[in-house]
């Protein structure tokens, strides 16, 4: 109006913080919306299916009552927990020594050994499962070799032994990686100081290295146990009738019993079990450290 003051812009000026918040929202939105509609909503849909009546579709906890009285469900849950615990323990027994061994190698040797851990880590679970069927089968490599030296053949496939070997093979690299990380984070001065003070190698290990690597051991074992709970391929391909796990039961109800409600209910139960153990893991310091490592 010619009074000399500059016209105030019509568009509301955003503060720097508002502008930043807008950019942040634009960056996070695609992934978050995608995961909301292609992951969270489907999971919620499964929950709703599990709570619907098979014929009328009305709200019903019938499937849960059926599950609660199903001896098959209890048996499979028990099998799942047993196999998961056993696979976690065998994996830990194999992983700790090599993590320790790798920790004491020169950087170059360690990098090479790391490749020997990473290649199996990345190898398709189907390649591994196939390898075990070929090696452990009735006419497989192991039994061929046993036959050569005149020993009776052994049954390593389609039973608990096969499942545990297959799962351990899959899980060991996970544990090596987490344990090695926590071993590497021990300041080298600590074991050095302990041995200067006169501690023997064994004492240094037992009193210094082992306790300081426990966060990695706990976090890694918990991670591996949680992964085990959802195993599907290994028990299906290497296990027998006695080794059906919860994930296989979900498929059984969906494909063979054609009962979506039961399949959903068991999936929800499996989800809750895994969530329970995840929550327990996050309660521990090790879990918090692991989570911090992932996010931060």
């Amino acid at each position, binding site marked *: 109006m010619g009074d000399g003051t500059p016209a105030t812009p019509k568009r509301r000026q955003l503060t720097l913080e508002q502008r930043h918040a807008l950019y942040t929202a634009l960056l996070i939105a*695609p992934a978050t919306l995608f995961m909301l509609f*292609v*992951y969270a909503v489907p999971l919620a849909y499964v929950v709703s299916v599990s709570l619907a009546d098979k014929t009328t579709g009305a709200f019903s906890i019938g499937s849960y009552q059926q599950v609660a009285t199903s001896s098959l469900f209890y048996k499979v849950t028990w099998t799942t927990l047993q196999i998961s615990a056993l696979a976690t323990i065998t994996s830990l027994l194999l992983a700790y020594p090599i993590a*320790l061994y790798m920790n004491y190698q020169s950087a170059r040797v360690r990098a090479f050994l790391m490749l020997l851990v990473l290649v199996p880590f*990345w190898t*398709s679970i189907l390649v591994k499962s196939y*390898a075990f069927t*070929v090696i452990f089968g009735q006419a497989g490599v192991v039994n*061929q070799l046993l036959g050569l030296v005149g020993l009776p053949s052994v049954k390593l496939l389609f039973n608990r032994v096969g499942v545990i070997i297959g799962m351990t093979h899959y899980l060991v690299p996970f544990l090596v990686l987490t344990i090695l990380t926590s071993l590497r984070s021990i300041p080298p001065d600590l074991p050095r100081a302990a041995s200067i003070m006169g501690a023997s190698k064994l004492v240094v290990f037992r009193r210094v290295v082992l306790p300081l690597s426990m966060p990695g051991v706990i976090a890694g074992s918990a991670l591996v146990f949680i992964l085990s709970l959802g195993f599907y391929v290994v028990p299906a391909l290497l296990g027998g009738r006695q080794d059906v796990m919860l994930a296989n039961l979900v*498929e059984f109800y969906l494909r063979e019993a054609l009962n979506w409600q039961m399949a959903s209910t068991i999936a929800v139960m499996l989800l809750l079990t895994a969530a329970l153990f995840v929550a327990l893991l996050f309660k521990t310091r090790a879990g918090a450290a692991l989570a911090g490592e992932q996010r931060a």
Partner: protein
Amino acid sequence: MISSRHIMTWRGVGLAAAIFVFVFLILPTAIVIIMSFGDKRDLVFPPTGFSLDLFRRFFAEPGWTQSALLSFRIAILSATLSLVMGTAAAIGLARSRFRGKGLVSLFLHSPIMIPGVAIALALYLYLNMLGIRNNDARLILGHVVMTLPFVLVTVSAGLRHIDETLETVATVMGAGLFTVFRRVTVPLLAPALTIGWLFAFVTSFDEVIVSWFLVRAGHMTLPVKMYSSIMFDISPVLAAVSTMLTGLTVFACIVMAAMQKKEA
């Protein structure tokens, strides 16, 4: 007193244990690879002669090659989609502070921890309800859910290596957001982006359970085809497939290791 013999013993035990575990990890795949070059119709170990018959059979059977091509297509598209969305989210999360950020991050990472069968069933029922029948679309949606968290993990780790003041200084010097992203963030993040994409690619290429639930008849991905073959007919071609798949894995592994070295 620690005698030197004592130390030698411990070293020996450690070495023996390490060799045992590495053999356990490597040997099964190695045996299959060796057998895949055998010259008999049936698999034997050790092979009696060298031949590439099994590989020829793989390329001669349209069922196998089509599965492989489908897997490549799905893995490339899923990994790329995951990389774009995951990188944007990783930057947004790393460069901001807001209430509920931890929750958003936990949500986006959560598919790592959730049993695959639950996601598989959920998507199966949900996509059927929505009537989405396109095989590629079903698989890509499922695979992005499975791979996006891994992109998020690797790119977030990469961002932690980048000194934030580099972005700040570029901004103060007058660079717009896009220029900062293109000239500063992306070049510095290149190794992490490569790792993230490869991670997503391999995860998608090897994914079994979600694909097993979502594929439509006659459109099997390579892992689904392998799964059903191990289940039902144990074709010796599986040995050749395993060899090629492992070759791809080793290649991806070496590239990732090289990138990690570059990043440090």
